[in-house]
Structure formats: C-alpha cells, structure tokens
C-alpha cells in the first residue's frame, strides 16, 4: 500500500483496488477512492455501473473479493461492525418499516444504535427534519419526499461521521431536492463526510468531488472544473439558421465528437479546438447560423469519458 503524503485533512475514506464479483460478473473492478473528511462526494454513472455495489462495500454490507483500505480510520475488512456504528446508510429504495409510524421507526433505529436518552434523540431528529407534525403517520402512507426525509432522519440520528446515500433524490420534486441538498451542506459544514450517488448533473455540480463510474471502473475523479478540464473538450454553440441541416452536416463532419440539440441551439463538442472551430464556422456559414464558443458542460465531459472507455485512471496509484 502506498503511503500518502500527509493530507491537509484526515481522510474519511481511503480504499484501494476494490473488486467485487457476482458469479462471472465483475460489479466493481478495482475502484480506489480517497475522500477528505467533511466533503460531499458524488458518484455518477449509468444504472448497473457499480455505484450501489461500491457503496455497499464501503458500508461493510458486501465483502470485497479484493482490495483493502480504511473507512473513518478503521479497517474496511476487519472492523465492519465498528464502521457500521459510525456510518449512516440510506438505501436506494425505502427500507424502513411501512407498518410503523415515523416515530416508531426512529425509536427502533435509536434502540439499535443504543442512543440514550432515546426519546430525546428521536424528538430532536423529528424537529430537525421537520417531521414532528407527522410523527404518528404510518411510513407506508408517506409520499416520496417525506419518505426520503424520514430515511435521512433515520440515518443521521446517531450522528454518524460518514453518510452514504444511494440515489436519495430519485423521484423527489425539485423543491424537496433543494431542501435535501441544503441539509447535506449543513451536515458537511458540521464535518460529516457525505457520499452520494445521483443521476442529476446539477446535484453533481454541488459536490466537492465527482467520481464517474462505468462498468465497475472509476473513470474520472476530481472537482467539476477538473473533470471538465481533464476531458480537454471545446464546445461551440450554434443558433439561428437551418438547424436541421446544420445538425446533419455536423454529425458527418470530422473533429466533431458530440452534437446535442438544446431547444433552438446546437451544442457541438470536440477535442481538437482549432480544427473544430474551422468546421463549425464553415457549417454555420453554410446554414445561415451564428456560431460562438461556449463553456463545456459536465454532461458533455461524461459522455466523452464513457465513449473513451477507461482513460487515465485517476486516483489510482501511479
């Protein structure tokens, strides 16, 4: 194991070469991850790319076939029970008891973590997450947003040092999502590390660190700007003119990697800046459109990384 040079802050997660297989299928293929304490870290990637499996391994719910490391300073393989005490894990689908009320669910969780006084912990958590007025409602009758809030309450009540959230905002309306992210930022400020998987680019952009996973591999790691910069992509925007014809020509043109319509605009992405500029200007003239350079978006960068398969494996020991 490589000994890291003293980090600025303590590492909440420091794992290397995690591999998890299910039969012949490799769900996680050599993932290495370093996360500083108090950061919000996003996991992105298509469905089935290994995000959930990676999270379960980090929570000690799955035993990795290879790899090692430390979570919250404890050994990932040997200290799973102690790690569980310090982690709050929110599963992808609602996994509390639908036939129990909000309050009963939280009392159950408080009992399992041996919090005392349990009532006080439950009361405070209910108040913190705005659940007090609904505390006697059966969990099964809650709407998606409230279920998600209850699930968050259940995994933060024991004051964990690491929160692992598996697609917590799937199917939640924009207002509830925004409130949820405000909660996460408050927790992060309090020094809690948050690992969150998501399909939403706007959520990824709120994170300190982004990890893009594809086919069990960590394809790119870094801040939003780093990830975009690492892609080396240049983006042009075309508007006005004959868009149908422009799109057709662009798709056939050299040096153009991606063409994506956005309302009345076309976003054109490529790696070779000067060459792309020539191609785009030419096609803009031919179709009476205006072309101007733009900022590369995170989504374009990710599509670029998927297309390239496994590039420079960031975060992996050299």
């Amino acid at each position, binding site marked *: 194991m490589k000994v890291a040079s003293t980090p600025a802050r303590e590492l909440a997660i420091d794992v290397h070469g995690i591999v998890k297989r299910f039969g012949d299928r490799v769900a996680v293929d050599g993932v290495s991850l370093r996360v500083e304490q108090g950061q919000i870290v996003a996991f992105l990637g298509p469905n089935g790319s290994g995000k959930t499996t990676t999270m379960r391994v980090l929570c000690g719910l799955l035993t990795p076939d290879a790899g090692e490391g430390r979570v919250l300073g404890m050994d990932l393989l040997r200290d799973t029970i102690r790690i569980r005490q310090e982690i709050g*894990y929110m599963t992808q689908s609602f*996994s509390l008891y639908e036939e129990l009320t909000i309050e009963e669910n939280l009392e159950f969780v408080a009992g*399992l973590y041996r919090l005392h006084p349990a009532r006080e912990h439950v009361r405070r958590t209910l108040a913190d997450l705005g659940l007090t007025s609904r505390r006697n409602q059966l969990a099964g009758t809650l709407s998606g947003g409230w279920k998600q809030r209850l699930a968050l309450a259940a995994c933060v009540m024991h004051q964990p040092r690491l929160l692992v959230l598996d697609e917590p905002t799937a199917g939640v309306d924009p207002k509830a999502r925004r409130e949820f992210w405000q909660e996460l930022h408050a927790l992060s400020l309090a020094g809690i590390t948050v690992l969150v998987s998501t399909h939403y680019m706007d959520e990824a952009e709120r994170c300190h660190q982004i990890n893009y996973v594809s086919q069990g591999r960590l394809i790119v790691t870094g801040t939003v700007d780093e990830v975009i910069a690492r892609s080396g992509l240049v983006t042009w925007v075309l508007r006005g003119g004959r868009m149908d014809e422009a799109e057709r020509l662009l798709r056939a043109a050299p040096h153009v990697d991606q063409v994506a319509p956005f309302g009345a605009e076309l976003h054109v992405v490529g790696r070779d800046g000067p060459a792309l500029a020539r191609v785009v200007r030419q096609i803009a003239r031919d179709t009476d459109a205006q072309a101007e350079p733009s900022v590369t978006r995170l989504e374009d960068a990710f599509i670029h990384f998927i297309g390239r398969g496994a590039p420079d494996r960031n975060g992996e020991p050299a």
Partner: protein
Amino acid sequence: MRPDFSLRRLLAMLRKELIQMRRDRITFAMMLGVPLMQLVLFGFAINNDPKHLPAALVAPTHDSHTRAIVTALELTGYYRFDYPNVTAARAEALMEQGKVAFVVTIPSDFARRVERGDEPRILIEADATDPSVASGAISTLGTVAAQALLHERRAEAQAAEAARGQLQVIVHRRYNPEGITQYNIVPGLLGVILQMTMVMMTSMALTREIERGTMENLLAMPATPLEIMLGKILPFFGVGAVQIAVVLLAARILFNVPFVGALDLLLVSVLIFVMALVLLGYTISTFARTQMQAMQLTFFFFLPSLLLSGFMFPFRGMPGWAQALGEIFPLTHFLRVVRAVMLKGADLANVAVPLAALIGFTVVYAAIALVRFRRTLD
C-alpha cells in the same frame, strides 16, 4: 470493546416485531383463531370411537348360542351386522372391498363345545387399516361374548362357569399389526397445530425483510445475528404460549381429554417444543430467499412430519427405515411426550429421552440459524 449482545437492541427489535404483528390484523387473527378452529373441526370430525360399524357374520349353524352372542355384540353399539349370514369366502371379499369392518366367525362346533365345556372359540377379524376404528369394538368383545353365554346358560350354572373360563375370542387385526389407544387425536392435534403456525410464521421472519428491502437497512445498523434471531422468534414464542392455552382448554372443555399427568411437566414440554419449532422456522428463513421459497420449504418439511411422526399412522407400524426417518422430526418426539404425559400420567423420568431429543433439536436449529445468518448481503 464491542459488546456482542445488547438488551437494548434486543428490546428495540422485539418492540418493532410486536408492532408489526399487531398491525397485520389478518395474520394476527389467524394466529389465534386458526388453532381453535382446527381443533374444533378436526377434534369433532375425527372420531376416535366410531360405533355401528358394518360387520359380517359367518355362522354355519344358527343356534341359540350364536344368536345370544350376535345380540350381545349388537347391543354394545359397535357392531351392525349388515351381512348376518355369509360364507367365509364372501366375508373375506366384503372385507377386502371395505364393506365391512369386522367379520365374526362362529365355528360349526361352537354349540357342541359350549355344552361340553370344551374351549369354545369365536374369531373376530378386524380391518385395522385405521387402527382407531377397531380398537373400541375389540376391547369390549371378550367380556360381552362371555356374559352372553352366561345369560344363555343360567340354568346350567356349572357349564356356564366352565364356558366363561374357557371361551376364547381370537382377534385378528388385519392389514395393520398395531392398534392405537383413544384420545390420540387431540394431544396430537396440539403438536400439529403448533407446528403449522409456528414454523410457517417464523420461516417468513427474514425473507419478509429481504423481500421488502428492509434487510439492507437492518444489516447496515449494528444489530448482531443473535439479537435479530431472538427479536424475531420471541414474539412467536409468546403466540405459541397463547395457542397452547387455547388448545389445552378446548381439549379439556370440548373433548374431555383426560389430563392424567402433571400439568407443569406438560407445559414445560410444550414450551420446549414451541422453542424448537420457532427456531426451525427461523432456520428455514435463513435458507430461503423469498417468502414463497420459505413456504415451500415449510411444506416440504410439514407433510412428511405429519405422516411419519405417528400422528396419522402408528409409528411402530412403519418399516424400520421410515421409523428412523420419523426420528428426525420434533413432532415425533413431542407426540411421545404429550401422549405419555397427558394420557398415561408419565413423569419426567418416563419422558426424559424424547424431551432430551427436543432440547437437542432446539440447540441444533439455533446453531444452524446463527451460522447461516448472512451478516452481509453477499
């Protein structure tokens, strides 16, 4: 540093299970209603002491002695001579066809032997395919026949004396070597009903959590396998205790089943049996991945245990290999204990062996369940 067992965590588990149980109205009602319903239904439907059973009479010479015996037999209420005068061959055929349960044969030299005081004999053949059918009828037979002759020959007191001493009633139980005593059914039902509900309910314990996705969350929290197991089975242990009370009271009040033995020994035995059952169910739930699988495994276990335990058919009537197989079911041992204690008044020493077997099952099931319990989602 990390305690392996926490009473607080166990209590949290228990409380959660009890709330879930209470909110599942139908299941909860079934846990208490079904045993009583089954007991009443089966208890009344399965008659231990059937009367007016069809019989055939083979009596080449119809004389006063024959008539006296036939009348006496009919008066017991057990026999109904549908075929009052048939040949031996016809009687044999009738029994094979199941048209008669008994064939009474009074040989042609019967009258002569009675008069001479020379060991008169009658032969009763009983269809003992269902042993309980025959037992009541047969048990009354010897005295009835002798007394019939006694009345018949009151005048000739001396000869009658000789006849009573020497009348031989030869009983052939056909198709099944062993008959079984009365009142078997209700104590047996206690075991079967407990087995049905206890194993089935607990076999769902973990699979339900897996199917509803709550297992992932439960495992992510610091509960130990022992705490989860106890939290899951103890509520059903309580349900079992209530069922026991219901069934025993019903047995006493509705069926007048005698309680010959010590009640405390009976209760301890039943509680050990229930413990073995809930652990068996829990063990099944560590093997099954879905509730459907758990149900199938339960039935896979249930039917052989019903047939081979001695509940349906006499245990000692089975071939050796089947008896050996029967020994692996807790129900087999429980039936021995409960019948011995309830009906024969056995004490602890008498039932120590089957009781030890039940305790053995409990320990083995608990061990398997704890080893099998997956602490991870692997």
